[in-house]
């Protein structure tokens, strides 16, 4: 168990810089998820911690010790790879115990430890099988066993669940979280799947084009996105964003087609009459009878079972509304929508950052620990 510090960490391949100065503190025992689309530098960051990539500039410290110049094996990290990277010619037992063999442990000690780890992962009866004879989920567990047996200071997961089918992914997610609760090892987890990030993380690092966009608990990331980018990336569907001009005197946003949307003036007391982006979640949208509220043209609906997503168009921008318990016969070609002003968030339309001058309200500052505990 160790904390990890990133200090102005940069990475370039030749002239092409892919990580632009990341500053980050990962607390001891924390489960930190790096979230972002492919090519945002999240895997590179993880591999720099592992020692598989050189650090171009800046420092990475594990447990207070700068590890820039250390070999991977000296850093005390264990890694689970996306394609598992099991040695195909070795049995499950040999795969799990390979690092002990390298470390020079006797065969007896090795077998005993491998047995304990394999049993804890439900692999006890597969020890003599080759990886080729295992299912995807079992291979994943072998890869985790191989990481666990070294009793590392830090666990690194590089998109470990992306090769599994949906059902198995959920099951493995639970196992990874359980493992973390049992061992309490500091964990870095890279993924492009925001559901995975939301469910697993103590804190999430949202990355965009090699820079950190926002660091926060899943609750903060979801409810207080600090930029349009985070807002649109997190959540299924992402935040609805409508362009408009603020009218602070009336507490309204005048949308491009002339309709208006009200925002909470107490939360944003000093907004100028500037171009803004108004954001709200699909579940914050309420549907009313025709002629009441803002008009949006329905384009199609997505059935989710318990609820359905209504895709509509409002002044040229897409708007998605979540309708749960909504009766299908009430869906009309023109939807009348309204949004609770407290649910409307404002972003600067030029920079894409959350509008400054927000007065944080008590209910929104209450962060996630209680929610995590409930999970």
């Amino acid at each position, binding site marked *: 168990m160790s904390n990890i510090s990133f200090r102005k960490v940069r990475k370039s391949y030749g002239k092409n810089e892919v990580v632009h100065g990341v500053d980050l503190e990962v607390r001891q025992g924390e489960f930190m998820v790096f979230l972002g689309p492919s090519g945002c530098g999240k895997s590179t960051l993880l591999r720099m911690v*592992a*020692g*598989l990539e050189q650090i171009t500039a800046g420092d990475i410290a594990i447990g207070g010790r700068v590890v820039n110049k250390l*070999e*991977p*094996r000296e850093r005390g*990290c*264990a*890694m689970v*790879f*996306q*394609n*598992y*990277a*099991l*040695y*195909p*010619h070795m049995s499950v037992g040999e795969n799990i115990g*390979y*690092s002990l063999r*390298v*470390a020079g442990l006797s065969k007896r000690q090795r077998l005993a430890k491998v047995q304990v780890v394999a049993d804890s992962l439900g692999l006890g009866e597969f020890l003599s099988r080759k990886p*080729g004879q295992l299912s995807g989920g079992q291979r994943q567990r072998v890869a985790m066993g*191989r990481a666990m047996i*070294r009793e590392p200071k830090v666990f690194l997961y590089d998109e470990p669940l992306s090769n599994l089918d949906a059902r198995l992914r959920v099951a493995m997610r639970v196992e990874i979280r359980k493992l973390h609760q049992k061992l309490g090892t500091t964990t870095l987890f890279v993924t492009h799947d925001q559901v995975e990030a939301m469910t697993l993380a103590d804190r999430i690092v949202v990355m965009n084009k090699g820079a950190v966009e926002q660091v926060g608990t899943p609750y903060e990331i979801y409810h207080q996105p600090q930029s349009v980018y985070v807002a649109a990336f997190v959540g299924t569907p992402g935040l609805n964003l409508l362009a408009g001009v603020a009218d602070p005197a009336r507490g309204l946003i005048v949308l491009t087609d002339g309709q208006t949307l009200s925002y909470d003036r107490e939360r944003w007391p000093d907004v100028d009459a500037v171009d803004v982006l108004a954001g709200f979640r699909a579940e914050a949208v309420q549907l009313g009878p025709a002629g009441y509220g803002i008009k949006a043209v329905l384009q199609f609906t997505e059935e989710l079972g318990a609820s359905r997503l209504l895709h509509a168009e409002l002044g040229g921008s897409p708007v998605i509304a979540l309708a749960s318990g909504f009766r299908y016969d009430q869906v009309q070609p023109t939807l009348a929508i309204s949004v609770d002003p407290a649910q409307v968030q404002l972003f600067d339309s030029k920079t894409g950052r959350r509008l400054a001058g927000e007065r944080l309200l008590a209910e929104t500052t209450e962060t996630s620990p209680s929610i995590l505990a409930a999970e």
Partner: protein
Amino acid sequence: MIERTPILDFFTHLILLFGLICLLVPLWIVFVAASHDFHTVNQLPMPLWPGGHLFENLSLAWDKGNFDRVMLNSFIVAFGVTAGKIVLAALSAFSIVYFNYRARMLVFWIIFVTLMLPLEVRIVPTYAVAADVLRPLRSTLSFFGLEVGLPEWNLLNSYQGLILPLVATATGTFLYRQFFLTVPDDLTEAAKMDGAGPMRFFLQILMPLSKTNMAALATILFVWSWNQYLWPLLIITDHKNFATATMQLQKIVPGPMFGEPPVWNIAMAANLIVLAPPVIVTVLLQRWFVRGLISTDK
């Protein structure tokens, strides 16, 4: 081919059969000739059905050709060359693929270009070096004006001389390089995370993974080195102790210059003896050989 028509099947089989016959007829003649006595073999036309003197001829040929010693020599040379080539090829490919040094592409291309310079092309300089191993070093030193009294060292009439000049291999290096390139990077990184150093990775992970490739390469190389003729002929003058099987064949067929009729039955029997080891090796390793060439064992 996805096409399946009876006529096409018939013709493809016909072509295959024709090729097979072209290959087998000479072998059949060798076998038939080896199984008759001296007089029958020299009849015109030669009989095309085997006679009853095969084992007698084989044993005569074995004694006449001093095959006790000669077969042993050939085995030593073939195994030595094969093992040497595989070790050298695997190590040089390992260096080219897994180590990031500046000259590695240059090194690879230099090795690759030697494909165009087989032993036959460079046989005179190779012989010169074998006759005086330290000569290149001496010339280099004297070019810089240094005169150093280096000892005499030659490889003539020795197993080293038969093996070492044949050990370098571009084909093997290339084959191993192609195989190493197909090994996923993740595996290398997993080994690094597990704490394995380069040599451990090479011996415990790469080598076991390349078993089928190694078998394929070994088959080709064994046959190739068994069949070497020109180089042993050149470097060996002590025929009693160091002659190889292929060299010995030439002695069993006395040419017209000796004024006696050629004893074809004995010569062909000797041929069968020399032919046997590569055939056996190929048959034994054939399954691996095909697998190693067409697919990676994953």
